[in-house]
């Protein structure tokens, strides 16, 4: 079996969903003829036709709104927003409608839609193309927010998102779109949307992360292992709703926790995890929880993006700091 990238796994999952379910419709700006600016939808319009794989006019509010309408009719829309920096016009549609349709109609009308967007920094992109603002969506009750970090998880989680009966925001870490390859069997198997994935087993400290930061986090764990420090690495993957059980179990084992995310620190999803650790795991902690995050600044343009994003070194420093406490 050939090995594929995250990007190709997204494409494979979309193709599988289009193949298996005639209700699946894929659309967005430049997704049809051009196959998406990152090529996530490459070839899909040719294979499944321009009625199910569509180029929309340039309007994100419309993209989200029409997805809601389609979903309310029982279709399975998979809408793309070209970059997370342009997702903000969808917010009214998502928070006022997508997340509430089931609740407002007591289950009479539901909203099984997926809103996909590439997100995150580190690719030398222009202004507004490097944002990590997943916390905005994680704050919305009624929504699932899913972030894959490997080809296997991209495939399985995207299928799960499409099959899920409720709205899902699916954020694709574009910095690692083509960074790694894995064998991904095209078996149509979805992964669970409500568990963390353990990427590395360890006893001394729990590292909690998601998206592209899994890369630096695993690097840090590798370097720390050489110094005899063993890290339990968790990819949260579904940041909403959170699988705190896995995180709490890991922290019960290690007694220490470092949370790593690319987004700005204040009000980030790391804050929620830390709060829940304080609520439910305080007594198993030997040291204060550390966060290694983007800073509370505007995401700088690319000259400084590497100074903004957590580095392997910053993660290692934080881990060592948690280990200084008895």
């Amino acid at each position, binding site marked *: 079996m050939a090995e594929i990238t995250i990007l190709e796994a997204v494409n494979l999952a979309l193709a599988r969903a289009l193949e298996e379910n005639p209700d699946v419709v894929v659309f967005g*700006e*430049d997704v049809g*003829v*051009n*196959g998406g*600016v990152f090529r996530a939808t490459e070839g899909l319009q040719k294979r499944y036709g321009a009625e199910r794989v569509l*180029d929309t*006019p*340039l*309007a*994100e*509010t*419309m993209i989200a709104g029409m997805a809601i309408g389609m979903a309310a009719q029982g279709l399975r829309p998979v809408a793309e927003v070209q970059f997370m*920096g*342009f997702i*903000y*016009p969808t917010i009214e549609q998502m928070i006022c409608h997508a997340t509430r349709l089931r609740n407002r109609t007591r289950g009479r009308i539901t909203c099984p839609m997926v809103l996909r967007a590439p997100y995150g920094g580190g690719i*030398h*992109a*222009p*202004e*507004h*193309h490097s944002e990590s603002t997943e916390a905005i969506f994680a704050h919305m009750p009624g929504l699932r927010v899913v972030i894959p970090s490997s080809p296997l998880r991209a495939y399985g989680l995207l299928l799960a998102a499409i099959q899920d009966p409720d709205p899902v925001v699916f954020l694709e870490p574009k910095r690692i779109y083509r960074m790694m390859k894995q064998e991904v069997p095209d078996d149509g198997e979805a992964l669970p949307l409500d568990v963390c994935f353990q990427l590395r087993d360890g006893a001394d400290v729990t590292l909690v992360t998601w998206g592209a930061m899994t890369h630096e986090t695993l690097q840090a764990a590798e370097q720390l292992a050489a110094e005899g420090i063993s890290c339990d690495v968790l990819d949260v993957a579904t940041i909403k709703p959170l699988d705190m059980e896995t995180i709490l179990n890991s922290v019960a084992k290690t007694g220490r926790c470092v949370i790593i995310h690319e987004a700005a*620190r204040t009000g980030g999803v790391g804050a929620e995890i830390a709060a829940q650790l304080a609520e439910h795991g305080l007594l198993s902690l030997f040291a204060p929880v550390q966060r290694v995050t983007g*800073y*509370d*600044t*505007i995401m*700088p*343009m*690319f*000259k*400084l*993006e590497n*100074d*903004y994003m957590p580095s392997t070194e*910053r993660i290692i420093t934080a881990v060592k700091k948690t280990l200084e406490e008895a």
Partner: protein
Amino acid sequence: MTNEEKKCIAQFEIHHTQLLNQAGELVGPLPDFAASYETLLALYRTMVQTRTFDSKAIALQRTGKMGTYSSSMGQEAVATGIGHAMRFEDVLLPTYREYAAQFQRGVAMSEILRYWGGDERGMAYANQPHDMPITVPIATHVPQCAGIAYAMKLRKEARVAVCVLGDGATSKGDFYEGINLAGAWQLPMVVVVTNNHWAISVPREVQTRAQTLAQKAIAAGIPGEQVDGNDVIAMRHVISNAIEKARSGGGPTLVEAMTYRMHDHTTADDASRYRDQSIVDEHKRLDPIDRLRKYLTANHNWDDDKEKSLHAACAAEVEVAVNDYLETPPVPPETMFDHLYETLPDALQAQRDEVEQLGKQKKGGDHHG
């Protein structure tokens, strides 16, 4: 009921202006400004300068010296006309293809290069106090233009706000919201839609069924007209009329400028995936620079020597800008905190210190490593 049986209560027409045809021949009355050789030369110079800049910017990106860049190749007449028609105290709200207007308004070429080089200092515009920086989130600046125009109106200033956006951008709600307000409040603003036929890979006819984009103005209750955006004389003329009308209290205008995107959407794009080179070649015949050159040659003794020395002068100017860009001193990383608020809140000081510290370590590391 058939339409004949119904009463017609409103009728609209959209007019198109072209003054120079493809061959550079005058096909309409010559506007007063265009009688001046100096003015025509200034327009010509700006277009040539912008194209020279453009080629160089693409080369910088291709050789890894700059980030993604959006070319205005083939569209130079649009922003040249706009920039020339504006007064310095007016306000321009550009997107990412209006370099020709920005240059005329005091924005330095090196600043534009810094911007695409991933550096916020490229938006500081040392010699342009009024204009907004380049807008990337499509059409978000149209309501802002209305706000700027309202501020001018409230203060009874004889100033005008000019907003430029693309054909694709006219599909977005912000655009309609902005022009609606412009009409409702009769704001001193001009909205220019640069119809270059493409929004990345999506052709204009897939974007909307409307016959013209100018007619979108009708629903907002404002005049809309179309102009040959590759005819810099028509462009300058139509925009100037719209601006002066707005300045004298006559209200807003929407102008659709017809042009063609000759390059990829940006250097990150590969247009060969979705459009035939033959269509692009077709449009070469409409080139705005060739067109004015033909007119100048026929009417103002323009010749090869003048052409050559103009190109040399533009190349030299671009060269200076490129060197200035390449010699830009590095940005200290901690400055990412320095323009968030007027004064840095205490809560952020520790983060700034950390970035400064890490920056020093990195610099030290670089020296020794």
